[in-house]
């Protein structure tokens, strides 16, 4: 890794941790930062420990992990397709995962807006994974042209498959009980409200297992950027590696979606910004991961407290509203640049 990349990664990681600490200290009960740090080091009073460790830390940890997973997934997909627009939110992975998860929330719901136990802990992540994989499979199979996945078609076909998955979701919301529909709608906006450790676990598993694997492909990823012909002449088995990385990217995005809903644009924006700042030819994985974590905890801090700070009301917004409000203009900017490039 070059020194610029290392410095930026460390900087983003440090900022993400600072924002996470701030997020642990603010809320309905304000805690001094010193108390938060004391609790995290193993001390502190019982009441403080309860608020920090049981209520706020699972949420903040889920946010950090989800940010990492989305950003790495986006970085992999963008590198594979050599298209900055090919993020899991655009090519249908998130919509497929959403359809799976909403199906569990609505169909396994008790009508009280809560699902618990096995259905929630295993059912939602599993359904999200299957939905995401199915969407990837369909999009991938349909965009193959002359034996190769066509980069431009992936995006367009992804938009079509996402539309189909979204109409399934709309139908599930209608057939469900109003409380289940409310829970699903909150989840669909991309939310970290009332996360528990069981929400963070699948994402943690995916990140811990798959991020090192993805890192092992770093050299191949750099070769893929040069084009398939050059890459294969450098000894990269293009088709096999592309498939492996596609699966890794899908699992990461699907697990992140299971944990916090389809938080918009993190997977698209974080790798792109990381690539610009490091001045590399492709999105660097670690820098993108730390930046993704920073984006999500920062957006969640704003979503959770923004309306109170602005004196509008005691409401919390889902984190996805904030990332969409910031990410959509950036996407429009990217499209504008691509159009001018033609």
């Amino acid at each position, binding site marked *: 890794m070059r020194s610029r990349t290392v410095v930026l990664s460390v900087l983003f990681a440090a900022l993400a941790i600072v924002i996470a600490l701030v997020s642990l200290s603010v809320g309905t009960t304000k805690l001094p930062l010193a108390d938060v740090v004391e609790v995290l080091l193993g001390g502190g009073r019982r009441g403080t420990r309860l608020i920090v460790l049981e209520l706020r830390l699972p949420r903040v940890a889920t946010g950090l992990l989800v940010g990492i997973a989305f950003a790495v997934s986006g970085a992999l997909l963008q590198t594979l397709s050599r298209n900055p627009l090919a993020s899991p939110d655009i090519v249908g992975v998130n919509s497929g995962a959403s359809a799976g998860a909403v199906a569990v929330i609505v169909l396994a719901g008790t009508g009280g807006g809560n699902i618990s136990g096995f259905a929630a802990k295993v059912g939602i992540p599993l359904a999200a994974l299957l939905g995401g994989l199915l969407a990837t499979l369909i999009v991938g199979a349909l965009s193959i042209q002359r034996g190769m996945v066509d980069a431009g078609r992936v995006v367009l076909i992804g938009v079509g498959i996402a539309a189909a998955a979204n109409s399934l979701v709309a139908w599930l*919301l209608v057939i469900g009980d109003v409380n289940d529909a409310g829970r699903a709608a909150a989840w669909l906006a991309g939310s970290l409200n009332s996360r528990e450790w069981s929400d963070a676990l699948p994402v943690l598993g995916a990140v811990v297992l798959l991020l090192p694997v993805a890192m092992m492909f770093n050299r191949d990823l750099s070769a893929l950027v040069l084009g398939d012909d050059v890459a294969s002449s450098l000894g990269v088995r293009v088709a096999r590696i592309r498939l492996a990385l596609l699966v890794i990217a899908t699992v990461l995005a699907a697990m992140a979606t299971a944990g916090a809903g389809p938080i918009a644009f993190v997977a698209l924006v974080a790798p792109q910004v990381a690539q610009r700042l490091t001045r590399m030819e492709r999105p660097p994985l670690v820098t993108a991961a730390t930046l993704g974590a920073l984006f999500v905890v920062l957006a969640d801090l704003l979503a959770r407290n923004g309306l109170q700070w602005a004196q509008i009301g005691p409401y919390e917004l889902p984190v996805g509203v904030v990332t969409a*409000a910031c*990410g959509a203009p950036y996407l*429009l900017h990217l499209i504008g640049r691509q159009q001018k490039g033609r």
Partner: protein
Amino acid sequence: MHPYATTVRSVSPPPVRRTAALVALVVVLLLAFAASLALGSRWLGPGALWHALAANTGSDADVIVRNLRFPRTVVAVLIGLCLGIAGTLMQGHTRNALAEPGIFGVSSGAALAVVLGLQLGLVESVSSTVWVALLGALIATFGVQQLASRGTGATPVGLALTGAAVAAMLGALTSAIVLLDADTLDSYRFWAVGSVAGRGLDVAGQVLPFVVVGLLLAVVNARDLDMLALGDDVAAGLGLSIRRARLVGLGAIGLLTAAGVAACGPIGFLGLLSGHVARRIFGARNTWLIPAAGVIGATALVLADLVGRLVGGAGEVQAGVVLGIVGAPLFVLVVRRRAVAL
């Protein structure tokens, strides 16, 4: 030369065959209409249908046909006509094979406006929804078109992605509002799925003025579109006011889409489907294409509603969902064909 413009020069079938094809399409629409009256959870024969329409005595079958099936079928015909024509007009004006209200972000603009209206208490009846949806639809149409044509003009990819980006942002705002208010969510989710179920003749009556004006503008615009297809310079040379033609087109698209969205909620893919099927049969002459697309749109919506009623059993699958699931493969087909050279 824009790839989509080449189809405009292709030869249309001779008048006799075009007339025969249009008559055949109308016959298919009438058959679909009759099927929609006859089929459902209870099958009604020709005798029972005739009895209900001609000699109503208030029997169960009479009530089912007159109060339930006939109104929703009329609404489906009217709104299918609107959305089929609106989509085809859009494809003509933008010279873009993917132009469609659903993809353009128009529906999400209308949706945000309707939710804002519900929240602020401006919207109570469907007639007040029309104005609000119209405003939202027009702003979104204009905004997406402007954003997508920065630089070199709107390419199919640019348009689809700009629509997706705008839809994501407006969707996030919509969900933020919906989540803060459970009552709004409960009204919104039934509206958002896109359905003709339970829409009575009063709904059709309320949107009728918009439909009539929109259709008149579309008829006027069809001839202008044929000239515009020759290129802006040639059209201006032939004495066409390009500005006026564009404004009339935008007005027709906005009115027809808003009427559709207000009456039935966002129903996607209908314009895409109608425009492409009509182009296959009738070639590129807009004076034929536009009425044909209207008939095809009406037939498609009646059939989608009927299919959703038959497969759903006790609970129906809404027409919007049926079209979303049927429409996505069609979208993929259009993308894969060379009509959308990337």
